[in-house]
């Protein structure tokens, strides 16, 4: 059976959820061979094996943290040479897409980004994408070279599928370009204790109607009662009420949770682009004409300062 390379996104050996989702998708096409790079790469093997990796290729070097993107491209290229896979799958983060694109160019391959589903096809894997602010669904495939495909978080279920997960060390020679862009400083994000926005099963967002940074406390309180991530519309971020890392929309994150709760968000195209594929959508907004209500499964026309705290109390009461 053909092998499929899966690029592992991990933090010091802790594998992030989107990579486990990739292993589920990779098994539809072939046998997953994981590639883990940098500090803690070897510690990823047990988790990866549990989720279907037949092999885990690892390489630890300071270059992966000290320089931008290119060292990882060099490593994936080396892995491609070693394995001759049927496809290469990479998580659809900003960095993941850059790695995938440069790799594809080197391999003489096409690249597809932001797939939301993947299936085997007669002429290679077929990727489903959600485009034009999620108003269209396309199916595409790579027609030249080894398909390189990036997949968005929440595109598949994480499944246990125990496999050998044999660790092999990958031999990598860094290219001349590898050290071109130096990372001279790194400030880790402060942990909020909440789930990662793109990976969360529930997202609670606030927009212009929240009307101030301090008022985001009621959005956070609802999120915490549900174990949800917090999102914000561009209007709220541009006003300086909430960090850009939490922005949902065209120029922020695109999310596809089981449940999306929009509070004080009108639902402009910019925002819809980032949340329209959510499974269930509910909204609270003062304006009955707000376009967000065209998307909802359940909507409340009312003042979010009344409705949201009441909802939070009710959730807490029901959860006991």
């Amino acid at each position, binding site marked *: 059976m053909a092998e499929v390379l899966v690029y592992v996104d991990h*933090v010091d050996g802790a594998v992030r959820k989107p990579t486990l989702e990739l292993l589920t998708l990779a098994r539809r096409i072939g046998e997953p061979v994981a590639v883990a790079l940098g500090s803690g790469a070897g510690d990823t093997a047990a988790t990866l094996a549990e989720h279907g990796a037949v092999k885990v290729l690892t390489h630890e070097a300071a270059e992966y943290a000290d320089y*931008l*993107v290119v060292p990882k491209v060099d490593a994936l290229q080396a892995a491609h040479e070693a394995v001759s896979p049927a496809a290469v799958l990479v998580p659809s983060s*900003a*960095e993941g*897409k*850059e790695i995938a*694109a*440069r790799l*594809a*160019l*080197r391999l003489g391959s*096409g*690249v*597809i980004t*932001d797939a939301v589903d993947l299936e085997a096809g007669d002429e290679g894997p*077929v990727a489903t994408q959600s485009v034009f*602010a999620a*108003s*269209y*669904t*396309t*199916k595409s*495939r790579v*027609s*030249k*070279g080894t398909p390189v495909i990036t997949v968005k978080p929440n595109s598949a279920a994480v499944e246990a599928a125990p496999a050998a997960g044999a660790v092999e060390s990958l031999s990598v020679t860094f290219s001349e*370009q590898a050290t*071109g*862009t*130096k990372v*001279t400083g790194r*400030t*880790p*994000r402060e942990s909020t204790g909440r789930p*990662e926005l*793109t990976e969360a099963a529930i997202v609670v967002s606030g927009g212009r109607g929240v009307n101030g940074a301090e008022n985001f406390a009621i959005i956070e309180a609802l999120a915490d009662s549900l174990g949800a991530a917090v999102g914000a519309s561009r209007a709220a971020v541009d006003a300086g009420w909430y960090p*850009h*890392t939490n922005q949902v929309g065209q*120029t922020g994150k695109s999310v596809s949770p089981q*449940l999306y709760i929009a509070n004080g968000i009108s639902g402009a195209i910019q925002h819809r*682009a980032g949340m*329209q594929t959510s499974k269930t*959508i*509910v909204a*609270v907004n003062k304006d009955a004409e707000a376009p967000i*209500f065209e998307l*909802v*499964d*359940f*909507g*409340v*026309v*009312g003042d979010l300062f*009344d*409705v949201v705290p*009441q*909802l939070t109390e*009710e959730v807490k009461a029901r*959860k006991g």
Partner: protein
Amino acid sequence: MSLRIVVTVKYVPDATGDRHFADDLTVDRDDVDGLLSELDEYAVEQALQIAENSDDDVEVTVLTVGPEDAKDALRKALSMGADKAIHVEDDDLHGTDAIGTSLVLAKAVEKAGYDLVVSGMASTDGTMGVVPALLAERLGVPQVTLLSEVNVEDGKVTGRRDGDAASEQLEASLPAVVSVTDQSGEARYPSFKGIMAAKKKPVESWDLSDLDIDADEVGLENAYTTVESASERPARTAGTIVKDEGEGGKQLAEFLASQKFI
């Protein structure tokens, strides 16, 4: 010292219009008004700021690859303050994908001459966000991308890249390819004077032969990816809307419980 900046921009269908696909599954450009991709305005803005803050002699050139109408995007960038423009246009380019576009841009940037390429973070139609990385790979120069803050000084570019896990400070020597995010600073509006001046600024037109690119390296037939189908997403079925009369939060909780979220 002089500094040559090339800003790559894209002419895209208006995202607020009713965008759809043509029969050959390329983006339909006829039925929706086009404009300079909003995210590229940030690139033009940062290039102009670098020029304004520099003691060097700086020339800002805007470059686009696209159909005849794409000149509108160049004109907008020129009216913001760019010095000159290059339009790469060729019938054989129809349907070219990101890999092919990066080839055309790389050849055009090399022909124009550059010390710094500035791009937006992604287009507002394709939204892949990979062209700056591809351009750096093709040109063999450092990729300093997704910056929310950028500075150019003493032959070096530095900047801040805000990622999911961390915020990184980056540094590279020129020549380099930079991309900037919508957090890099509000783009200026063209002034009346700027709009008038833009009409007199030079716009060069190049075709594939000017760039020594063969027709079989680009275009829909030679794309590295194939779109097999495109279907309109079915409209979401109308949901229940209630007016809050004191019980709105409880009603919403009831709905969430019925869907097993609580």
